[in-house]
């Protein structure tokens, strides 16, 4: 190394400040939840159902208890509280009772002095199952013999109350509108997995007070705590959670996994118990993105104006409720895309089946719909001979538009500008046939083409997503900010329960504090349940909501400091500022340094901060001011397709996104790069494949996520149209690029091949439809 780069941990709003955990992660020293360790701890293992649907006749734990080294074997009879949990609706057993409803459902637990012993003992538990025919089709499950058509399907009930989790109806405008041209299409999206790299893991430590301390990788400590308390039959003062190092989340850690299991084993044995899933267990042990079947009908005028949209969306929620109701609401309310359409009818159904449970994943219901509505826009453009960007701009939502729910879009919605800007970005040059670089070809170094059969395509997509929790949810965050002088230097300590899952919230909090309090040294207390609820790290909401809470707490602290300063100064001074550890006034200069003002008297404020309220959907029309804020992104994809082999190289994946205010531009770019790549993964390769409810690819051998050689160069342009309702005018960033990237790639693939490509992810065999057979 001939040069060294100075790493600064400072930085304010708008700076690309360094992550506090960055060096540790890059050098391999960061402690993830799977690294947790305590002397004398036991290892937990989970016995899971091999059947997607079965009755449990009996469970014999005797053979497992007989294994030397085993300390406990627990079943549903050992759950002291309510044997049920769930985010929206507690319908998922901690340990299966009389039935199992999906492959991988936990049935029994073992704690042993070695992980191998625990696993071997779990295998010795004898469960007598009576397998039942699994329910695997979401449309049939809700009793529809075809789109929106109830009938006798003869499908059994997965739960006693029936298989319909939720039906969201959107009714806007004229129910019987007339159009010049009608375009109808059917689309299907497979089951994507969050595929975070750090498997589910945690350590439960029994406490002397009869309670338990759980260290766990999660997205929302307090919602975990609430569910754990109910299952354990303990109060919140007895169940204390601390965030352990999180190795990615993407929605997959919103639901409980090993949380209650580890606590049960710890309380039962009186010893610390660690559980770490392996990769296969991880694939079976968390919720996935809902697979979708969708039918869209667009009625348009000859000039390209969309007169109406009718959509039917079936989302397969799998065996338990999880967050299906909210996912259904998102797909329903945002199901026609960021377009201003006068007449809308959307029916969105969430179904129980015996497929793997599905819940939260980045994009949360909007990802599936975007593949359909954007495909429809391209078909309309082709039918009318219009440019794909022109047709989108013609119908684009803008500030002042009304959502399908009737909600006024009351801040910037620059859909047409995003599209025009992404269209204006330079296109990649054509492949130079004299300079063969296999890495630039479809198939890569697998050496499948030297240019033969390769055709280039370009496609566009635009998408939007609600930020924060919707439909009247009391969505808030709690922040405690303490300013004190330590060793003569001002230091700020921030305590929240908001989960850093890799997205960079901790960096953003430090930047906010430095900006608001003019203090460089910002310490983050561990996220835990000793402080109030921080809300979920999901819905692109933490910078908005926890950032908002930290900002508001800082403002209270600052006010107190100014009071102290004026008291010491002897009189009131207007227009005070906190800069570099000093209270100053433009008119009078320095009023005092924090080091002098705060000796022995820390200033501390705790605040609960809420975004503006939202309201529930009308059950018949979907009318409501249901959402807090919308975030928009547009993508242009350029692909090279080997039309004989169906292999794809994404050549470019360019994005323009409005983020309101880029609190940390580098982190914003990181979100856009990663989000786009996750969208690319769904478009081209990522799918949990099930047959009759059985997962066939629960490993990274066969569940493929993009590698660096699949990741194209990405030009990114960031717009900052402030939302006046949001702190600093910011918009949530993490989800929109995941939504628009995949549909843009599909559009480019259709452009290259001329094939309809209605099934996502696209497989090589789909891409050779017209050639080579």
């Amino acid at each position, binding site marked *: 190394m001939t040069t060294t780069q100075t790493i600064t941990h400072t930085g304010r709003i708008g700076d690309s400040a360094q992550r506090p955990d960055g060096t540790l992660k890059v050098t391999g020293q960061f402690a993830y939840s799977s690294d947790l360790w305590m002397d004398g701890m036991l290892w937990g293992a989970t016995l899971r159902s091999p059947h997607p649907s079965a009755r449990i006749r009996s469970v014999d734990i005797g053979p497992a208890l007989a294994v030397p080294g085993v300390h406990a074997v627990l079943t549903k009879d050992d759950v002291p509280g309510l044997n049920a949990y769930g985010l929206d609706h507690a319908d998922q057993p901690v340990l299966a009772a009389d039935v199992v409803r999906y492959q991988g459902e936990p049935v029994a637990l073992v704690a042993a002095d070695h992980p191998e012993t625990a696993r071997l003992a779990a295998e010795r538990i004898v469960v007598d199952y009576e397998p039942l025919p699994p329910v695997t089709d979401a449309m049939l499950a809700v009793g529809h013999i075809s789109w929106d058509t109830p009938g006798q399907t003869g499908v059994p009930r997965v739960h006693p109350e029936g298989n319909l989790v939720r039906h969201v109806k959107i009714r806007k405008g004229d129910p019987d509108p007339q159009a010049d041209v009608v375009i109808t299409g059917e689309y299907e999206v497979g089951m994507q997995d969050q595929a975070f790299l750090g498997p589910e893991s945690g350590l439960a430590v029994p406490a002397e007070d009869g309670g338990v301390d759980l260290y766990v990788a999660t997205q929302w400590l307090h919602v975990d705590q609430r569910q754990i308390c109910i299952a354990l039959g303990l109060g919140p003062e007895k169940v204390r959670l601390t965030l352990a190092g999180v190795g990615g989340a993407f929605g997959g850690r919103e639901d409980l996994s090993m949380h209650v299991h580890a606590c049960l084993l710890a309380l039962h044995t009186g010893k610390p118990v660690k559980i770490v899933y*392996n990769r296969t267990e991880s694939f079976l042990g968390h919720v996935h993105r809902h697979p979708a079947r969708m039918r869209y009908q667009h009625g348009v005028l000859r000039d390209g104006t969309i007169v109406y949209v009718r959509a039917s969306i079936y989302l397969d929620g799998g065996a338990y409720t999880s967050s299906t109701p909210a996912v259904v609401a998102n797909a329903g309310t945002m199901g026609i895309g960021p377009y201003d359409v006068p007449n809308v009818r959307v029916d969105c159904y969430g179904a129980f089946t015996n497929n793997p449970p599905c819940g939260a994943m980045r994009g949360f219901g909007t990802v599936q719909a975007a593949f359909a509505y954007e495909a429809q826009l391209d078909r309309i453009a082709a039918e009318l001979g219009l440019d794909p960007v022109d047709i989108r701009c013609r119908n684009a939502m803008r500030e002042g538009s009304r959502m399908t729910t009737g909600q006024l879009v009351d801040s910037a919605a620059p859909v047409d500008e995003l599209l025009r800007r992404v269209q204006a970005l330079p296109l990649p040059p054509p492949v130079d046939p004299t300079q063969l670089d296999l890495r630039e070809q479809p*198939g890569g170094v697998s050496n*499948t083409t*030297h240019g033969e059969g390769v055709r280039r395509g370009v496609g566009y997509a635009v998408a939007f997503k609600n930020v924060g929790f919707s439909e009247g949810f009391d969505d808030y965050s709690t922040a405690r900010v303490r300013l004190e002088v330590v060793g003569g230097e001002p230091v700020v300590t921030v305590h929240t329960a908001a989960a850093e899952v890799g997205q960079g919230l901790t960096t953003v909090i430090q930047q906010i504090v430095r900006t608001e309090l003019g203090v460089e040294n910002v310490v983050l207390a561990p996220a835990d349940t000793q402080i109030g609820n921080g809300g979920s790290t999901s819905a692109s909401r933490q910078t908005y909501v926890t950032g908002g809470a930290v900002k508001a707490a800082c403002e209270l602290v600052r006010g107190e400091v100014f009071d102290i300063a004026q008291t010491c100064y002897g009189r009131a001074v207007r227009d005070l500022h906190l800069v570099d550890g000093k209270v100053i006034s433009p008119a009078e200069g320095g009023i005092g340094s924090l080091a002098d003002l705060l000796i022995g008297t820390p200033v501390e404020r705790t605040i609960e901060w809420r975004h503006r309220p939202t309201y529930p959907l009308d059950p018949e029309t979907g009318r409501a001011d249901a959402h807090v804020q919308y975030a928009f992104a547009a993508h242009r994809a350029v692909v090279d397709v080997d039309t004989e082999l169906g292999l794809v190289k994404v050549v470019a994946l360019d994005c323009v996104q409005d983020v309101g205010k880029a609190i940390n531009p580098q982190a914003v770019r990181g979100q856009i790069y990663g989000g786009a790549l996750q969208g690319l993964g769904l478009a081209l390769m990522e799918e949990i494949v099930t047959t009759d409810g059985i997962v066939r690819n629960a490993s990274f051998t066969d569940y493929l996520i*993009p590698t660096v050689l699949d990741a194209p160069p990405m030009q990114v342009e960031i717009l900052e149209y402030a939302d006046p309702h949001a702190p600093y005018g910011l918009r949530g960033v993490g989800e929109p690029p995941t939504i628009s990237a995949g549909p843009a790639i599909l559009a480019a693939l259709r452009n290259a091949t001329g094939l309809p490509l209605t099934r996502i992810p696209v497989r*090589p065999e789909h891409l050779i439809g017209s050639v080579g057979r």
Partner: protein
Amino acid sequence: MEFLTPESWDEALTAKALSPDALPLAGGTDVMVELNLTARRPPLLLDLTRIPELTTWSLTDDGRIRLGAGVTYRQVIEELNDELPGLAMAARTVGSPQIRNRGTVGGNLGAASPAGDCHPPLLAVGAEVEVASVVGSRLIPIDEFFTGVKRNALSPEELIAAVIVPTARGPQQFSKIGTRNAMVIAVCSFAIALDAHHQTVGTGIGSAAPTPIRAHGAERMLTHALKSLWQRRGPLPEDLVQQFALNVATAAKPIDDVRGTAAYRQHALTVMARRTLTWAWDEYWSTGEAAA
């Protein structure tokens, strides 16, 4: 699980004789994955990484390369690209740099997966696998080595000592289908080796039958058809290339599985056979070897 750590080849063979159910471990890129996923629980692991002679290659008296069973993919890529171009191309498609640093050709043969990337190029050049036990050693022709899905011709007391690979006597190609552009297991794969000296053609097909196989019919057809063409400088007739491609696909017996359909594999083999033959032949005649 016991872990045996022989320090020499003789010790390893003795250990294998005493514990025939011991699972040999080289780079661990297959075995450790199976252990971690609890897909496999062998009673014993036989660690072969402490035996230096396994990790080297040498030239045999008859001009072939003897690759010790512990030679890594990375060594093949960096040291044997000219001698064994087909195997080197296949090695480049294996996993990630970390996997190529650890994984070995011998381990690939030991696992005997129908999807093993080394197998098609070894089939195409008629390699021999040198296996040994305390009783002695023997050579197994590569096309008798693969006996079933993840099964090979080793007896329980035997270990793979080396694989003996003829050096290239003409252009070689390897091509592999995966649904991402790196670090991917083969949906199907194909290798071709032109032997300009003997005027023959060798092939290997991966992931399209219960074992890696040669396309014997395609080899015979093409070898016969090329008889009059080796000395001519110029491209192959289109219909000959197409006939070869169809014969390759006919040899395959693919199935539908989570990685792809049988119909797609059959189709992809025709495309790979057509392209790789064209690349190899064009390299042959355009680099002047035809005149030699």
